[in-house]
């Protein structure tokens, strides 16, 4: 994350365990991803650093497995079941999340804690 002097950015690390939902032949996670090293990071609305080519959560289906597990829109996915997700292509990310042999994905995410950032920026200097 980029560092802007005078404005500390706090990030919260979360462990999210998603139990995939079986729908017929498919295993549903209930969220969408954007980003990847093969994508243009400038368009990412969620990243602090506009050169950040990481994988971000762009949407969480209400009531779906990811929602239930506590994943939030804007979360940056750092790892999936131990696999690094900070230097992968969009398609590699998709594959790591949708392995048919895995019913559960354990994500390590970072989440910009807006409240902390606002609070800190309002503290007297």
């Amino acid at each position, binding site marked *: 994350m980029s560092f802007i002097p005078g404005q500390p950015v706090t990030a919260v690390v979360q462990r999210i365990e998603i139990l995939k939902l079986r729908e*017929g*032949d*498919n295993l*549903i*996670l*209930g*969220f*969408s*991803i*954007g*980003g990847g090293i*093969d*994508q*243009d990071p400038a*368009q*990412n*609305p969620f990243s602090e650093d506009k050169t950040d080519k990481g994988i971000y959560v*762009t*949407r969480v289906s209400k009531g779906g497995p990811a929602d239930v597990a506590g994943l939030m829109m804007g979360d940056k996915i750092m790892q999936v079941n131990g696999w690094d997700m900070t230097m992968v292509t*969009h*398609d590699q*990310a*998709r*594959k790591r*999340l*949708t392995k048919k042999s895995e019913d559960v994905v354990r994500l390590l995410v970072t989440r910009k804690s807006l409240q902390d950032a606002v609070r800190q920026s309002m503290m007297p200097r």
Partner: protein
Amino acid sequence: HRDCDKLNLFYSAPNLEDQNSVAAPESLLPYGEREWKGNTSKSRLIKKGYEAVAQRSYESLRRVRGDNYCALRATLFQILSQSEKLPAWLQDTDMSQSELDLLKQWRFPVDHKNEGGAVEQLECCLKRLRKRWQEAVQCASPEEKEHICQQVFVGQNEEYELLEALKFLMLRTAVQLHSDMEKGSQVPEFCWLLFARDTSKCPRSFFTNHLRHVGFSGGLEQVEMFLLGYSLQQTIQVYRLYKTDTEEFITYYPDDHKKNWPYLNLITEDDRHYNVLVSKQLSSKFSKSVRPIWKIPSGGHTQERHITQL
């Protein structure tokens, strides 16, 4: 892929006056009227079929060159002109040992000595398919996709290489499905039919007696259409006009993945010759999806990528 070009696999189509293998769109109803002028019960049935299709938001058809490749050709055309996503399996171009054994007998549509290069040639074909499919998927508009189709469907080497690649994919899938059957795993119903025929009890005989001849002396049987759809992970939706007024009027190859495999639309009067079916929404102005799009800048030419829903 310069090596592939050097191999110079196939010669160009001798019929130069009709260079396009897939014609421009023609309206369904006038087409039906022209082709079936008589008043026999058959021509009434077929024309009724065209009317029924026209009523379902299909505006036109595109005639496909009428040789034994036409089912494959029509399917390939629809893939390049409509596919939005590359199937994951397309990344795997390695060949298994059992495939390699079968491939030595592969026939290519040209009269030259293979010199044992069948495997090499097929690998090239598969790579070309992947490259073109990827190009097509990354197009920003239907016009760009059409441009690619105009480049491919001119009866030259590339078109036939791509068609042979489709046949190879069918073989690969047949080998996989047969192996699953032997293990007792669940397989789609059509597999039982595919391998129940005396002439194709196993992938080897299926290849020798059927698949090898597709494009030359035979087209695709219905059960092989299922295999084709399955191999590509697409739902090939075919309007079969001689089956108008029956429940087989629309047949899905295959019918068990309608929810998750993209649709490709074809039309046939007789299950022998297939044409491409064009829906109204494609004929009209392209309306951009409302999903957010992250563009990749690459040397001045931007491409679109969607966000992936999981």
